[in-house]
């Protein structure tokens, strides 16, 4: 049997489409974990990135923090969090957020730093206040890069959220872990395929959002 036939077998089995272990509910769980983690990472990374990028201060500190966070293994963090806090959603969120903050933070910082200084200078020269300079002049131009940071974070979260299954939570990781345990490779491949599809959907969503919120003047078409 090859991988494609595993995929076909997994998705054509009607039992896989029903109940608490069915594809719709696992998918929904996975999306929920991912959205929550992305929201928390954005709530941390965006404001800090915008502020440091705007003022130009704290760039070194950001690099240090981001590199340290990147060096932490997600699985190790999960184990540590469970040992310290116990089971539940929180210990799963910790590694996901730690994983997602660096791309959001660093890219946002870099994106704002990279904005052409001339319009910023012009904006100040015409009496614009700093908050307006940031949100009306810098952010609209930095938006494509900021979104790319969020996209990177989202993709990493979607694939890593499978670890939730290790601590008895749901999500698409269930299929992979249960499948491995049960030596049911159809399930493993099915779960992995679903993660890949969700990643593609995430990519498409970000592309769509980019089309909607980035000005044609910045997209240059």
């Amino acid at each position, binding site marked *: 049997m090859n991988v494609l036939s595993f995929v076909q077998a997994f998705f054509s089995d009607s039992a896989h489409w029903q109940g608490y272990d069915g594809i719709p509910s696992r998918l929904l769980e996975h999306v929920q974990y991912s959205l929550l983690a992305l929201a928390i990472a954005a709530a941390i990374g965006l404001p800090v990135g915008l502020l440091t990028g705007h003022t130009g201060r704290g760039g070194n500190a950001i690099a240090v923090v981001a590199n340290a966070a990147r060096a932490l293994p997600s699985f190790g963090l999960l184990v540590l969090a469970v040992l310290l806090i116990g089971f539940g959603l929180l210990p799963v969120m910790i590694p996901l957020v730690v994983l997602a903050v660096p791309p959001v933070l660093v890219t946002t910082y870099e994106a704002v730093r990279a904005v*052409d200084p001339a*319009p910023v200078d*012009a904006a100040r020269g*015409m*009496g614009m*206040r700093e908050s307006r300079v940031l949100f009306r002049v810098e952010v609209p131009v930095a938006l494509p890069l900021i979104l790319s940071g969020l996209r990177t974070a989202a993709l990493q979260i979607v694939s890593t959220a499978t670890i939730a299954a290790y601590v008895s939570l749901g999500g698409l990781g269930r299929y992979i872990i249960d499948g491995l345990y049960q030596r049911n490779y159809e399930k493993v491949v099915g779960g992995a395929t679903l993660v890949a599809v969700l990643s593609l959907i995430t990519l498409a969503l970000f592309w769509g959002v980019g089309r909607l919120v980035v000005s044609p*003047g910045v997209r240059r078409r």
Partner: protein
Amino acid sequence: MIRIDSVTKRYPDGTVAVDRLSLEIPDRSITVLVGPSGCGKTTTLRMINRMVEPTEGRILLDGEDVQRRPVTALRRGMGYVIQNAGLFQHRTIADNIATVPRMLGWGKQRARERAAELMERVGLDASLAKRYPYQLSGGQQQRVGVARALAADPPVLLMDEPFSAVDPVVRKGLQDELLRIQDELGKTIVFVTHDIDEAIKLGTMVAVLREGGRLAQYAPPAELLSDPADAFVEDFLGADRGIRRLSFFASDALELTTDPVVPADAPAERLTAAGAPYLLVTDADGRPLGWRERGSTGGTERLLPYGRPFRPGTDSLRAALDCAVLSPTGWAVAVDADGRVTGVVSQQTIGEAIRSAHTAAGAHSAPARGEDEKVAG
């Protein structure tokens, strides 16, 4: 009026960008700050709208220290134009221009109308309103920059090398446009450039700065050309300042003669009569066709080209001289607004006019400089 009162700017790293500079910037005219790169022009300009704060001295706007004004209110009363226009690339041209009016709380409709009005004023086609900056040429972007600075009708305009990044032909167009706009609006403009020709063309008053942010000379352009204060200014003005100075003398005092001017259909004896060695042949409307060597015959296709004529009253002595120098006969052709010949004038006559103009100008330029020196103190 803007008064710069012995202002010094020392940056934190110790660089003295401006050194005890004093200038009185007259209202409703263009004052140019010119000098080599790094001589403190930008710093001076940015101290006026408090983008840079002086280390010592004060800047007065209508008698009041700018330090006392809230920064945002001060800046909203001063248009600011920079080198690469600095347009907001995510906003349409109309929205770029409407930025300050919108900040001041104008309604959408009113701001849009104002933007349309300004686009016309700076010579931008209305069809560009919905475009984005990347769709415009450098020269067009710079026009938008000027329109944006004028949008809320501020009495003061600060311009930092606004035309330096465009090619010479476009630059000339922008300069002419600025002079035209200034004729209509009468703003108090402080204009920074490193290009002395631009300074001379645009400035009512020109402040020449030298390295270290010190004032070398503050004078009207004609006086700068006739009486440079020292070797630095003379050097900075470059060669042929004598010729360039002629731009400031009107050509309407030139004595024209119509003796050698003949219509193409004139009787043969007029074409051969004694007098000047060349005849200027005109068409039935009096427009020039070309020069004919006395005694020569043949149709109008055999005429010598008459070069570029000048217009007394509009053109300067420099244009008249240029015309005479380029003419194959050594005579310059004067025309009226409709291009009809009003007379011709020889190089020799122009030379005499130049000498007497210099003598007359020299007689009253001396006291004028004396006053300026006091101001520059």
